């Protein structure tokens, strides 16, 4: 028995650091740490040496200086006397705008195309296959450039709308598609609550949020009643009323009116001017990402086994109820995670704005600001940080949602 125990007195040996699994992982980590630190310090010391050689320092003070350049699309007040920081914020807002619009349209397109691709109508499913394969297999940049060329080369100039018998006419007298961009009607208020237009819209948004909450309560009440009596009360007119009425009352109170675009001088005035660059970027991003989302949606629906819908039919559920209560909730679990990564891709791809001159974060903070101040290191660092934070926030928010629809396993 004594031979089984370790001989006493034999303490820690250096070779144990390599050959003993208890210590080896520690050794490897320490070595890796040292190597990483060395690499990092090597990069930093190189950077410091290079900066010194160029006579530059590492300083974010440039953000407070006047920018001295104009931005053609701005969601907040900005002029060339504003600071570089404000220019960056304008660019960031533009990025967020096109990313948000793109995500919405891409989802709509993707869901429609994905469902239609599964349609038993041969022609439609083939058409959708052509759409999906065509957009997935050609670089996004080419689509952006192509749609931008369509917007600028194939659309009429504003002068074509002039005269008694114009070469082009506005759609419904409200929307003008020109080579300088698209003009759509704007909603203005005659008697606004606030001077700043943004706050008025904020009020409407808050009311809308309350209305949606109320609709949820109504549906919950209907659900409780259905549980108790077996009959679901009809709620759709109530729901529509709850959403539409308060908004309509607000609009009337504020004296909302439509400001239609009209030809003034050499160009259109009034309404909202959507630049060709925004439209091209938005459409290209949505169509391209929509093709990927279509495949995700198709895969998600196909992943639900046929037994599920057969079981629902056997229970006597209608096709629409089957879709809403049986197929979709299960398909969403498969669809959501890749959908999140598509939204992330779209947001990151919005940096291709450079191809059409759309003033996004890369063009202001990572473009003109860098060129004017010569602060490549700081500018690129901030830009990278912005995209990183944005990616993390989107994936974080979507993960919360994903967890809420996830299969609750015991």
């Amino acid at each position, binding site marked *: 028995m004594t031979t089984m125990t370790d001989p006493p007195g034999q303490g820690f040996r250096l070779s144990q650091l390599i050959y003993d699994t208890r210590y080896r992982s520690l050794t490897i980590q320490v070595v*890796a740490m040292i190597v990483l630190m060395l690499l990092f310090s090597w990069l930093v010391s190189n950077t410091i040496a290079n900066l010194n050689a160029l006579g530059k320092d590492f300083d974010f003070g440039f953000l407070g200086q006047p920018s001295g350049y104009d931005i053609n699309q701005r969601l907040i007040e900005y002029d060339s006397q504003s600071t570089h920081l404000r220019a960056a914020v304008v660019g960031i807002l533009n990025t967020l705008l096109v990313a948000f619009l793109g995500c919405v349209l891409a989802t709509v397109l993707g869901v429609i195309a994905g469902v239609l691709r599964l349609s038993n109508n041969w*022609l439609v499913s083939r058409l959708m296959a052509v759409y999906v394969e065509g957009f997935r297999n050609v670089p996004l940049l*080419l689509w952006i450039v192509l749609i931008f060329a369509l917007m600028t080369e194939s659309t009429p100039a504003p002068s074509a709308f002039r005269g008694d018998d114009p070469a082009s006419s506005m759609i419904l007298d409200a929307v003008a598609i020109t080579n300088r961009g698209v003009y759509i009607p704007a909603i203005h208020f005659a008697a606004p609550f606030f001077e700043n237009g943004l706050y008025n819209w904020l009020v409407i948004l808050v009311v809308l949020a309350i209305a949606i909450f109320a609709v949820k309560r109504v549906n919950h009440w209907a659900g409780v009643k259905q549980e108790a009596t077996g009959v679901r009360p009809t709620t759709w007119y109530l729901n529509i009323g709850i959403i539409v009425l308060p908004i309509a009352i607000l609009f009337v109170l504020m004296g909302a009116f439509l400001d239609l675009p009209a030809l003034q001088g050499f160009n259109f005035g009034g309404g909202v001017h959507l630049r060709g660059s925004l439209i091209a970027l938005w459409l290209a991003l949505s169509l391209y990402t929509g093709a990927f989302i279509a495949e995700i949606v198709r895969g998600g629906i196909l992943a639900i086994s046929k037994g599920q819908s057969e079981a629902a039919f056997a229970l006597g559920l209608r096709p629409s109820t089957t879709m809403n209560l049986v197929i979709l909730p299960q398909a969403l679990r498969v669809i959501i995670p890749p959908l999140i990564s598509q939204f992330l891709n779209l947001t990151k791809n919005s*940096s291709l704005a450079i191809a059409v001159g759309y003033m996004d974060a890369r063009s202001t903070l990572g473009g003109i600001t860098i060129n004017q101040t010569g602060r490549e290191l700081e500018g690129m660092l901030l830009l990278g940080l912005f995209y990183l934070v944005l990616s993390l926030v989107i994936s974080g928010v979507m993960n919360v949602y994903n967890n809420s629809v996830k299969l609750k396993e015991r």
Partner: protein
Amino acid sequence: MSDTHAQTVAYVRDSMTEQREPPVAQSGAVKWTRENLFSTPLNIALTIVGLWLIWVILSHVLPWAFMGIWDADSLSQCREIRDELYGADVSVACWAVISERWEQLLFGFYPPELYWRPVLAFVLFLAAIAPILFASLPRKMLWLSAASPFVMFWLIWGGSLWVPICVALGFAVGWAAVRFAGPKVGALGGILLAIALPVLYWALIAEPLAGALQSIIPLGLESVESREMGGFMLALIIGIAGIVLSLPLGIMLALGRQSDLFIINKSSVIFIEVIRGVPLIVWLFTASLLLNYFLPPGTNFDLMLRVIIMVTLFASAYIAEVVRGGLAALPKGQYEAGDALGLDYWKSMRLVVLPQALKISIPGIVNTFIGLFKDTTLVVFIGLLDPIGLSNAIRASTEWNGIYWELFVFIGLCFFIFCFSMGRYSLFLEKKLRREHR
């Protein structure tokens, strides 16, 4: 029994009637049409909308494409020919820009008399990739795959033949270290030697050796500068180099992310997330604006090399995620079986886990490659002449000022052919792998 039966049956047919054709509505094209195109009112509406859409698109595109003019020197000449043939108000394609400039779109400004070199390199690439893609080919061809990067490099950039040979020798040195020194100094020491010896060799010996060999036996091709390359050749070089280099890096990162070692795990996670969280275009600008800051003062190397480095790092993060998916999909029993056999970490990874995990992740890797290949168009923004950059350059010339769609169609079709066939391969593989698992 039979008697009673004979009484109850009044009539028994003794001959079969002629077999009749099924009703017209229940067979052939009519049935197919009814079932697939006109089964419900909604389907009828969809079919009509679809037909209308096809008609609108084809009635514009087909005449434009097929009436196109192939033989002209400039856009204005194209228009003259069109006015003569069809009249001024007909829109037709001017394919002459393709027939005149296709070589430029494919090769950039590569010297025309040397076009055979990139073409040969591409053929070699196809031959080298074949044994990796199709398992039925003889395994001996893998030696060709191993040698091809060096040969391709030599064919495209030219220069002394001894340079790629001496670089390749470094790998032989590493292999020899594992093979011969490994048993004497132990596994870990062998790996360390296999890393240290080739690095020392490349840093100190390779360059003088190549120079000396070149001066003794001068062998080589006319060298071509990176900036002369462009078009699809550039896209392919960056894409292929990126994927080949990022694959090992991505596998290491995936293993790092799966590892229990805290520091290695966390540094892999940070690297992967940072790279994936920032758009490629920002990384490319980093490569062109900032990479020189991070390197010792005075280093200045080729923009194309910098782009390849950045693209490699970028793709490796994506591949790491794909491979991680493959590693996670393996049943835990496989890892435990490796341990139970007494294999150490590297052996169990190399012999048990990775072959299976990589097999599962090949479709994902192919998809990453498709994405990477499409993303090579982004290099236009840092001044490299990829196909889109060349289309801008062609449009800037006086002869072809104002030509858009023909170039876009050509570039789009080329990309489509590449990416679509890769996508089909990935599907083929998925099907094959699924069958094997059943």
